[in-house]
């Protein structure tokens, strides 16, 4: 695909032009060195940070908000779907992969028009990872710390310059309409990008070497459901059912439709839900197919590594590691997978 070069300053000007009246969400770095997604006004573009790795927050919220109104009734006229134009800068390969998974969920046979219009009105500008977090493990689930397709533009910051790869027709139009901001890169820069990518890939592998996990996971998960490693002082032991992992997860997509009376009509909202909550499974008469935490805990693994593969031909984990950072019970999904694969090896012997 076509790769161009720009400078940090010129790229900011380019962004200012393309955002226009829309909304820009970009990565910024805080005082403690953490990376966040923030809504940036046009006079703060110098704060954009393209270093390190993925932000603390998941970018799924731009397309699938924690709470959003989806219906109001009775209503005289049919609603129209609308969403502001947004530009997202700094999503990493893991977030983009997750977005492709959500695309499948929300726009397969029955289309969620709210999600669809937010996606249509978005420009996705991703970025190579520069310095992975200790919780990063994309390489261990079969992905890479740099995106190869599915973005509009992908950035690679190199010594004050930015390599800009074009990944879609939308991206192509953007750079063509603003050709002044871009130039042809020298081969040395492209070579440097390749070298950096190899280094970061290796770095992620090193971070995770001691877990000894390897995709695929489907057979392991489906065969180890009864394994003792889940229970007793095992994997589910320190889970406090807070839902932090599912909220920060870029692929967790469970929601509940909640109705509220507002004056003389009903407002229906789509609200994020969590399969760890007992109430998630509760049916009429207080019955539940999963009254025990252990079974709900296990479900998250079955859902991500088994059911998703059957239904969407991809595991619903992109190795972003946010759940590892968010868990107050110090549950590390890599450790879970590692113990399950070890159990699988033992049971095969």
């Amino acid at each position, binding site marked *: 695909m076509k790769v161009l070069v720009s400078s940090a300053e010129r790229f900011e000007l380019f962004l200012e032009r393309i955002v226009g009246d829309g909304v820009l969400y970009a990565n910024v770095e805080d005082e403690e060195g953490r990376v966040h997604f923030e809504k940036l006004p046009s006079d703060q573009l110098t704060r954009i940070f393209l270093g390190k790795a993925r932000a603390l927050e998941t970018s799924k919220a731009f397309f699938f908000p924690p709470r959003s109104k989806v219906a109001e009734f*009775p209503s005289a006229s049919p609603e129209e779907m609308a969403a502001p134009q947004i530009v997202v800068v700094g999503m990493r390969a893991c977030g983009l992969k997750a977005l492709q998974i959500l695309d499948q969920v929300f726009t397969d046979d029955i289309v969620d028009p709210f999600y669809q219009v937010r996606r249509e009105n978005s420009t996705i500008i991703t970025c190579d990872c520069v310095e992975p977090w200790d919780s990063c493990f994309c390489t261990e689930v079969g992905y890479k710390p740099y995106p190869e397709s599915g973005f509009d533009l992908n950035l690679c910051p190199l010594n004050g310059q930015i390599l800009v790869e074009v990944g879609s027709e939308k991206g192509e139009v953007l750079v063509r309409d603003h050709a002044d901001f871009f130039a042809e890169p020298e081969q040395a820069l492209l070579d440097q990008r390749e070298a950096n990518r190899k280094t970061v890939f290796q770095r992620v592998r090193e971070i995770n070497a001691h877990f000894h996990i390897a995709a695929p996971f489907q057979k392991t998960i489906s065969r180890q459901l009864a394994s003792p490693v889940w229970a007793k002082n095992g994997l589910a032991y320190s889970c406090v059912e807070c839902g932090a992992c599912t909220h920060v997860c870029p692929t967790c997509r469970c929601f509940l439709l909640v*109705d509220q009376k507002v004056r003389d009509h009903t407002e229906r909202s789509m609200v994020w*839900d969590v399969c760890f909550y007992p109430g998630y499974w509760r049916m009429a008469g207080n*019955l539940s197919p999963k009254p025990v935490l252990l079974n709900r805990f296990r479900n998250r693994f079955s859902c991500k590594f088994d059911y998703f593969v059957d239904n969407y031909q991809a595991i619903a984990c992109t190795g972003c590691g946010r759940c590892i950072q968010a868990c107050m019970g110090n549950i590390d999904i890599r450790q879970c997978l590692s113990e399950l694969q070890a159990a699988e090896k033992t049971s095969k012997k």
Partner: protein
Amino acid sequence: MAKVKNPYFPVEAEILEIIEETPTIKTFVLRPQEPIVFKAGQFMELSVPGVGEAPFTPSSSPHQREKMDITVLRTGTVTDALHEMQTGQKLGLRGPYGKGYPVDKLHGKEVLVVGGGVGLAPLRSLIYTLLEDLKKFKRVAIKYGARTPQELCFHREFKDWSSRKGVDMEVTIDVPAPGWDGRVGLVTVLLENLDIDLKNSAAISCGPEVMLKFVTLKLLEEGFRPEQIYLSMNRNMSCGVGKCGHCIVGRYFLCKDGPDMNYADVMDVPDLFG
């Protein structure tokens, strides 16, 4: 502006009539603003305005287009509010969702219909479907259980159903009751020593999970193969369109792939019956 149908928006429906089936079960006869075409076993998301939504399978014949019966046991927030509603009031309907009962696969077979409590509601829609085309089925055997004689749903229609040629019906109540001279025991007692052609039959069951579990075990014990058993599975569906995740049973979404599942497809799913 995208103009795509909003799958979360309900169609308005008026309550034409309310029938008290039992002290805790009412049938709501509804007239939707626009006719809703459904197949037996497909379900609706019913909204009580300002309160919430819950999934119910219509209990009326799919051939009856202008009106739809929904039979509801009073058991939670939405159903409490629904039971308080009066004729003339409006509520919301989304759907139909799911695949419905595999009626085509029952052609030429002896069909065993097994219901428990309010579980007879979705089955009533199936029974009407079978009755309307009885020649296509070798036999329809209805087995129904409720806790007490007062809790037998659609009692008023039993005589009509069982008087039809090729249809037989047996009813049981959980514990003996004054004035009851019929069968006593859980619905599984009606499945013992079944006089049925095992090679050419299928069973369809609807009721609480625990009942489905014991009905399945009993049928297997009686010689049914898993592929011959269909279960109307229960989960608290929210979206109805295979996205929200609440109704997953293994890899299946009950709202899209069910709610009636072939036991052979789901028998290995963890926590199938809770």
